[in-house]
């Protein structure tokens, strides 16, 4: 049997090296692989390009990774949060680069990376400042922008249940970018609340087939970002 499980978040992220492009799942705190991110903070790997819808909250998880100076570039749709000043401060100080992408275009670019589609056309952002420098083209009398795939060296994703082979299910709206990022990274690292044996997940219910997953670690009681923030916690 193929067994992709490893013992600790530290072991799971150990192959991430300086300069890597890292997709990080989650929309706000839902689906954020906080234990994997904290392991990456412990490891101290720098000069990362991070791809996430947001830029984190408070001073834990993704916000802490950014605050710790490990991220040199963010690709995201909404780098604003009522709970975190870490990204804004670094951005205003010119210490972090930002590529702003409309949310649906971000999702589709990641899917394209996973699906071997180097580029596609989308109507989003036509006629706006985010279209500047982008190739335009008309189809059936309407204008579209050319957008390119996004791929990554690593993806960090949180799921609900994984079998040892890496078939995944998610929990409610924590699904969000997870299935797409699993497809688009060379090495996909997953934290699962529960790890089960192959066959325990109904083949009809698998959301991410195991071919997209490389490494799995069980985190049975994941931290909740909002609770950490309410408690005023920071990482490390």
């Amino acid at each position: 049997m193929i067994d992709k499980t490893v013992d600790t978040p530290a072991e799971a992220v150990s192959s991430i090296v300086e300069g890597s492009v890292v997709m990080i799942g989650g929309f706000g705190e839902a689906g954020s692989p906080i234990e994997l991110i904290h392991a990456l903070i412990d490891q101290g790997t720098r000069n990362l390009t991070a791809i996430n819808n947001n830029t984190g909250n408070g001073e834990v998880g993704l916000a802490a990774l950014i605050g710790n100076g490990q991220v040199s570039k963010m690709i995201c749709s909404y780098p604003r949060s009522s709970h975190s000043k870490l990204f804004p401060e670094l951005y205003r100080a010119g210490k972090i680069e930002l590529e702003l992408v409309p949310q649906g275009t971000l999702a589709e670019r990641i899917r394209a990376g996973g699906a071997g589609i180097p580029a596609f056309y989308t109507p989003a952002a036509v006629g706006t400042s985010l279209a500047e420098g982008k190739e335009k083209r008309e189809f059936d009398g309407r204008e579209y922008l050319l957008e390119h795939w996004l791929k990554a060296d690593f993806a960090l994703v949180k799921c609900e249940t994984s079998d040892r082979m890496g078939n995944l299910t998610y929990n409610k709206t924590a699904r969000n970018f997870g299935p797409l990022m699993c497809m688009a990274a060379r090495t996909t690292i997953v934290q699962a609340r529960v790890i089960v044996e192959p066959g325990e997940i109904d083949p009809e219910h698998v959301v991410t087939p195991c071919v997209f997953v490389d490494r799995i670690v069980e985190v049975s009681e994941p931290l909740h970002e909002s609770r950490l923030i309410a408690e005023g916690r920071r990482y490390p």
Partner: protein
Amino acid sequence: MKGVAGMATGWSREQMATRAAQDIPDGSYVNLGIGIPEMVAQFVPRGRVFVYHTENGLLGMGPAPSAGAEDPELINAGKAPVTTVPGASFFHHADSFAMIRGGHIDVCVLGAMQVSARGDLANWSTGAADAIPAVGGAMDLVAGVDSIFVITTHVTKTGEPKIVEECSYPLTGRGVVSRIFTDLAVVDVTPRGLEVLELAPGVSFEEVCENTGAPLRRLDR
């Protein structure tokens, strides 16, 4: 131009949401923006059912949970806790924006900073030099959803019109807004220009014109 803030007449936030809800057909799939647009769900006309889509991966969104029943992994696009209704489904972000971009969502109700006479919408950035640009899903929504409704106060807190000839703020999309619901009036964006469909009680067409930065036509009905 007169300050509207002090006016006793005009629609309240609740009334604006109520009025917008009246123009959404029964059985519509609806995406509601943060703020007043969200209130539309509280004022669905009797006999109609709307199915709510939230772009972070849920169709069949229900109201906020009772205190203590929040689930940090069941949230809406504004990152607030929500619930599901019978017939709900979860899906990933690419499928969610396929619904939006593919024209499957019937109506999207958004807030606005400015709307132009041709239906250009500005609602994501002031363009200020030190602002952190953050667009989220707004550009995808306005490009993909058939009917874009805007709910907004007719003027800013400082009395500036929000309905203008040309938007001065960065655009979210060009020619995308179909109808505007303000505290003073309901305004349609048409190929012939802006048309006032309805006036709030106690508000005159002239008052609306004075508080609008673009020409308005009055529809005789």
